């Protein structure tokens, strides 16, 4: 007796009257979110796009009579017209590029390493996980203050180095590029003329090749310290999804720990590795808080980043058009890097769905094939 009754009810739920009722409620429930997102995200992006094509200097409304259309001038100031705007932009791109180049691989490797050792069945796992994760929940302001203290020239790190018989650098006051410092060890003090006289984005080739400044290295270490905990958790979840039997089978075949890691673990958590690299790229191109609190771009602009430069150009120098243009270029860079990672990380050994269970002849070991199949199934 109950079944047909339930059936009628189900049918009644799908009647148009109820639909209309739900539409009204649905849009009412969504309204606050949609309105706030529209007013404080979509509309302002359009406004900022207009500002990036205007000569607005911060007086009155950017939509009023104080601002005029100047076409691509602000973008040209950053990209093609030689001058301070261009060289600052070039320097900020260089700084952030080296920051990304070092932080992304290191944080990915460190967090994977942490996840692998925490994933072993050891005691006090909870304690270790907490210790590694805690820096991720504290504010960037507090962490920056702590790092400024640790890395000041007379601070804890240099004291520690002095016990080891080494003299530490001036850290956040040291503008020397890491690669230049290394070249100095080999007696190269001055650039070859070819590198000193060629310029790109207002920065000489020699300076492009400087590497991150010693000051920037402090921020690189800080980034690894604060993000590795979060990424460790993502890796940990992926590791726990690996079926134990795969590892056991490999162990029976006599595979060493390293071989198991290289040929089973890594292929199976491939999607997670890509996710973390992508998240890392998106995050590292946006570094702002730490620079704002720590150095404001000093020493000698070697910690200047596009995000901070965009802020500074607009809010402190009142060149709103240039600042807004810079923000859009930064957006473009982030989108570009995200797309590039997606293209670069498409799984080359992925077996097409149709052929997955037919034997693959003559390439790789059984282990690799198993792993590839299973990670393919995970995607």
């Amino acid at each position: 007796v109950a079944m047909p009754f339930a059936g009628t009810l189900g049918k009644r739920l799908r009647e148009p009257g109820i639909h209309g009722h739900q539409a009204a409620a649905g849009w009412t429930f969504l309204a606050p979110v949609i309105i706030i997102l529209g007013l404080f995200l979509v509309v302002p992006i359009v406004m900022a796009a207009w500002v990036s094509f205007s000569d607005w200097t911060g007086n009155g409304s950017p939509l009023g009579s104080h601002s005029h259309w100047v076409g691509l001038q602000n973008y040209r100031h950053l990209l093609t017209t030689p001058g301070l705007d261009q060289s600052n932009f070039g320097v900020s791109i260089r700084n952030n590029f080296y920051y990304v180049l070092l932080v992304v691989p290191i944080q990915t490797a460190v967090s994977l390493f942490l996840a692998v050792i925490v994933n072993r069945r050891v005691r006090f796992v909870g304690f270790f996980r907490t210790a590694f994760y805690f820096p991720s929940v504290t504010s960037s302001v507090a962490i920056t203050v702590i790092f400024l203290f640790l890395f000041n020239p007379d601070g804890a790190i240099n004291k520690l180095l002095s016990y080891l018989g080494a003299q530490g650098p001036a850290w956040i006051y040291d503008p020397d590029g890491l690669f230049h410092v290394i070249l100095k060890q080999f007696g190269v003090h001055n650039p070859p003329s070819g590198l000193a006289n060629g310029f790109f984005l207002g920065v000489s080739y020699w300076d492009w090749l400087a590497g991150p400044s010693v000051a920037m290295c402090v921020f690189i270490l800080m980034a690894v310290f604060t993000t590795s905990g979060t990424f460790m958790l993502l890796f940990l979840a992926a590791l726990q999804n690996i079926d134990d039997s795969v590892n056991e089978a490999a162990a029976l075949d006599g595979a060493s720990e390293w071989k198991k890691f290289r040929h089973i673990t890594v292929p199976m958590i491939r999607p997670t590795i890509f996710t973390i690299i992508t998240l890392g790229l998106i995050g590292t191109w946006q570094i702002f808080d730490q620079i704002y609190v720590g150095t404001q771009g000093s020493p000698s602009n070697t910690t200047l980043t596009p995000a901070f430069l965009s802020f500074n150009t607009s809010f402190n120098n009142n060149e709103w058009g240039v600042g807004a243009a810079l923000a859009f270029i930064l957006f473009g860079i982030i989108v570009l890097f995200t797309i590039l990672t997606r293209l670069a990380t498409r799984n080359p050994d992925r077996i097409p769905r149709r052929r997955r269970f037919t034997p693959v002849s003559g390439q790789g070991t059984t282990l690799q094939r198993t792993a590839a199949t299973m990670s393919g199934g995970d995607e």
Partner: protein
Amino acid sequence: MSDSATAIDRARTVRNDARAVRRHQIGTAISYSILTVIAVVYIFPFLISIATAFKTDPNATANPLGLVPSPVTTAAFHDLYKNNDFLLWLKNSVIVTLSITFLRVFLDSLAGYALARLRFRGRGAAFATIVAVMAVPGVVLLIPKFLIIREFGIYDTYYGMIIPLLVDAAGVFIMKNFFESIPVSVEESARIDGANLFKVYWLIVLPMARPALVTIFILSFQGSWNELAHFVISAQSTSLNTLTKGVAQLASGQLGAGNRYPLKLAASVLMTIPVAILFFLFQRRIMNVSEGAVKE
């Protein structure tokens, strides 16, 4: 023949087993030592900050590594209280964080519920828009947000600091996923009884959604308590300084703090306490948030 072969086999297996056990033990020992060293590296900065907050200025400079302050002094904390607007920053942080957090939990869950449960035209498009918005990097939005806040005349007010942060797409996403994971039957029978949808949502759905609500409560609290950039661009009066903004000014020496590390570190330690408490209370849940994210 076959008997002795089996015996040799068995002996070999036993020997291999012993070797495997020993290898395992060595592996475990190495794991522990590595874990301990790294844990020290991760914890040390916090311990030394707490210790330094109780040191005198000269002692902090002379002995930056010491974990036991001697003499112990609370001068830095007195100074924060008397000569700096620490309590004002704290008050602003509390007002802003709590407003953002409670309203966000409410609005995100409302939207998540509509997207997961109610059938209406345009639902897919609305969801796609929210996901697209989620993908726009926050730093790129600093100038746009400042422009609109000024245009609406809410620059340098609590409204300007709070309203733009009221909605976060990630929260809507989490709520939507949660509602899709719980059975529809309870609320359906209530809906059929003719209760209006808001009542169903408020009296039946919300209480069931407590785990997810706690999750976005923690995320929102942590996010808005630690937020700096948005408050920098949405207000300029010192009377609206939050803890992040105040401590940032203290750190960059704008408030004449120079090299007074005990003062700066005392402020950093104090501002970390609320988030730390929340973290230790809800540790398991916080860590599961990220785990859940990858299984999607």
